[in-house]
């Protein structure tokens, strides 16, 4: 139990570091409420290395902690919408045979942006944001692809390590 909590905490901490790095990169989609989602690397890895419940905890806890730490409470609702939607999409895809972590990560990246956009549309009660949809899908594919390619060796190394520990 303690070991599981420690590993979960480690994953959350890693996700927070990645979010911080992301905040340092002066990269802006120019689209309200949308970010790169580097921390998804940790969630993808958690899905493969840990169990589904722990991966969900990692995803939600890091989002709340980041919003509190970096004082962006206003963006919490968008981050949660993106994070939770992408978690369930990635969980579903990872359970289907024939997908590698890259496919899971791409689905996660796209649904992350989709979730944020839908939340933003609900908040401003306007469909005008839907014009950003195609660009956001392409951006999600690119970030998902990059994160997935990085996640693959990480998952392999982690699985080996976890196996040895047991």
């Amino acid at each position: 139990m303690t070991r599981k909590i420690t590993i979960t905490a480690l994953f959350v901490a890693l996700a927070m570091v990645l979010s911080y790095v992301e905040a340092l990169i002066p990269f802006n989609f120019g689209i309200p409420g949308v970010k790169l989602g580097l921390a998804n690397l940790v969630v993808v890895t958690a899905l493969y290395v840990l169990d589904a419940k722990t991966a969900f905890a990692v995803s939600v806890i890091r989002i709340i902690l980041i919003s509190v730490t970096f004082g962006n409470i206003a963006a919490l609702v968008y981050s949660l919408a993106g994070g939770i939607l992408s978690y369930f999409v990635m969980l579903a895809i990872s359970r289907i045979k024939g997908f590698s972590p890259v496919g899971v990560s791409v689905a996660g990246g796209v649904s992350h942006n989709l979730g944020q956009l839908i939340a933003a549309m609900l908040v401003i009660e306007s469909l005008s944001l839907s014009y950003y949809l195609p660009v956001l899908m392409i951006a999600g594919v690119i970030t998902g692809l990059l994160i997935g390619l990085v996640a693959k060796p990480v998952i392999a190394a982690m699985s080996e390590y976890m196996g040895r520990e047991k």
Partner: protein
Amino acid sequence: MKKKDFILIAVILALALAGLFFIRTRKHEEGRYAVVYIDGEEFGKYDLEVPQEIVIETDRGYNKIVIENGAVRMEEADCPDLICVHHKSISYDKESIICLPHRLVVEVTGGEESGIDAVTY
């Protein structure tokens, strides 16, 4: 990467490109009015032919909208991201500028209401 990964990526990209194509090929008609929405409610409607400044102050913050040369832009705002201020000015029907932190939308609409445009085209 596996075969299904490639299929997934191809499907998403195809959908996105279809969406882009759809948006690009829409008729670009000059708009007539700038409509400001706050919280999804219409706040005001302004003629694009009339140069003017609209200052909006709500408890969320401040926005200054400027109409000039038949186009509308966000001149100033005190929102944290300033995406609205960096947005290019808009003048075509259905274009919009969004200030998400202030829940404010500026949308250009066509001239259907006037009834005269239909004849002059």
